């Protein structure tokens, strides 16, 4: 499933641009809706190409997301004057500017950066969904056949999950860009997967790894004077490499040691 989320994160672009044109501002709600629709459409199109057109699944993913992304880029150039987005922002976001876009209360006081508010609400919503539907999400991702057999709608939970991916993507879009969000979606869980065998612990651990990657990435970016989002992606890669080699349960070293002892 990792690559479907990769595809979604690319393919929401036209949704964001259209939402932009539609609302005329960076109104977060319209953008989330626009991206959400595109995210579900992507999932649907991939399945459609795979099942109806009998295109192999890897190619279906590749064809769909490049197509939608290309449409997004063209839309940006088409409405370059009207849309306050540029191509670089699409790729790697502008997290450094988040403090500039503040929510201003009626009495003129600054509340908080808008991105912070948006991301906090997305985090809360996702947290709530995972807590409430923990067992359904666990069951349908572990054993979809059995889940269907005992009466769970695999399709519904699949689309809910993909909807959450789309929401995260669009919420992180301004800050880290459409592509680097993939690093944040895939790398921390993969790292946590190497560190624990417990599903709940894996959920917590991957958030923690995400936090560490962000914090250390920020300092790396300041030190190198480079893109913050890119540095976060780099740091998450470094953390993964660390876990890959040194993990006490599944690390390369541990495996070598076990082999040497036998």
């Amino acid at each position, binding site marked *: 499933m990792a690559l479907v989320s990769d595809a979604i994160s690319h393919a929401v672009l036209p949704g964001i641009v259209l939402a932009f044109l539609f609302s005329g501002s960076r109104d977060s709600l319209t953008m989330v809706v626009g991206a959400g629709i595109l995210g579900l459409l992507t999932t649907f199109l991939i399945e459609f190409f795979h099942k109806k057109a009998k295109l192999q699944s890897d190619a279906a993913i590749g064809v769909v997301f490049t197509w939608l992304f290309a449409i997004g880029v063209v839309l940006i150039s088409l409405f370059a004057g009207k849309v306050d987005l540029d191509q670089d922002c699409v790729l790697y976001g502008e997290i450094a500017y988040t403090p500039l876009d503040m929510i201003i209360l009626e009495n003129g006081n600054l509340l908080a950066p808008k991105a912070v508010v948006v991301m906090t609400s997305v985090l809360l919503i996702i947290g709530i969904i995972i807590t409430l539907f923990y067992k359904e999400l666990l069951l349908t991702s572990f054993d979809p056949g059995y889940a269907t057999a005992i009466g769970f709608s695999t399709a519904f939970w699949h689309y809910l999950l993909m909807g959450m991916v789309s929401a995260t993507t669009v919420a992180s879009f301004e800050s880290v860009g459409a*592509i680097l969000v993939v690093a944040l979606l895939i790398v921390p869980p*993969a790292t946590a997967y190497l560190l624990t065998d417990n599903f709940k612990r894996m959920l917590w651990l991957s958030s923690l790894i995400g936090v560490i990657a962000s914090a250390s990435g920020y300092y790396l970016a300041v030190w190198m004077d480079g893109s913050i989002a890119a540095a976060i992606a780099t740091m998450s890669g470094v953390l993964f490499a660390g876990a890959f080699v040194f993990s006490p349960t599944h690390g*390369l070293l541990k495996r070598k040691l076990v082999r040497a002892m036998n």
Partner: protein
Amino acid sequence: MSSFTEFFSFADPNVRYVTIGAVLITASSALVGTFTFLNKKSLLGDAIAHAVLPGICLGFLLSGTKNPLYLILGAFVTGWLSLYAIQYITTKSRIKEDTAIGLILSVFFGFGILLLTYIQKSGNANQSGLDHFLFGKAASMVAADIITFSVVAVCLMTLTLLFFKEFTLMVFDRNYAVALGLPVKKLELLLTSMIVLAVVVGIQAVGVVLMAAVLITPAAVARFWTNSIRIMFVVAAITGAFSGLAGAYISYTAPSMPTGPWIVIVISTLALASFLLAPTKGVLNRFLKQRRFRRTIQDENVLKVLYQLGEGSKNFYIHRYAEEIIRKRNFNKQSLMRSIQRLCRQGYLEKSGELCSLTEEGKNRAKRVVKIHRLWELYLTTHVNIAPDHVHEDADTIEHFLTPELEADLERILNYPVVDPHKAEIPY
């Protein structure tokens, strides 16, 4: 229209460069991509496309120049490294291949962007233009680029031709290729190098993100139109070349339009159109065929009813009203009338006023349908152990489709029986 002739006269050298460059890149990428497509590794191309970015930046940082040789060298190194890392992670840990691809892709790309922003802010005067690799710069290609592209394109095409049968076998059945004694490891190395090469030049035209489309979408298009691997390669290359040309033309007529994304939109539209319109595999064709089948079934059912009505009196040529047919089998009146018209046109029925009857030809066709129906019912009961009261429905569809060969088989297997399980006589 004038812009059309202007463009295709290729008088403007800029137009010439852009067009030739785009066509060369898309056509040769399509060739190489067809192998990755057939190998079910479509997304590896995507991973490589993202992973060459840090290499390009490192090449620039280490050499201090934008000499394409260093950049391509750097791209080659990290492109290769990413492939190796994906393979290493998948074999040495419990992480699955798709996760490994997404992981390596995003981390390498993130590192590349980090280096790129670092270079941009370091104030190196040489750096401008490196970001072309992100979105491509097809519209600003110059003569020197075209030379590089031509060399690479010719290399890729020659290699594809030279090792065509080896690659085909390897992609189709790797183990057999090993067993035959082909140097599979070396061939794989060669093929992946070709992909990396195609990516390195290709991203200059369409950019990192859309490179995957240039590699695999032409192959997906071609797959809809043919079952022959050779024709598939030709179609893929033509599709690629056409979209390169179209992309160049669109961005020529509307200069604010980026070439790369338009190339991808053109290929994707072709893919969608193929999916809808392609012969045999296309959705439209399947739909039409289904409709034809349904008509045939209905027409034959009308003939069958007339035949069955005639069986009682042993006279098959009695003229009957449509109502009589409906009483025997529930047809929709309008579609029945259409069927009768069609059958009259084809000479299976004769009409006189409101009445119609079977012709000689019509009777024979109906007889065959009835015969197959009853033979199949018998076959299902004697050979497939299905209860006699459950065989009718199945026979009702099979009777319309059975080929003459299978019909003969059926007669032979059952040894020309006289009656069906319901004691109805089987007509020969």
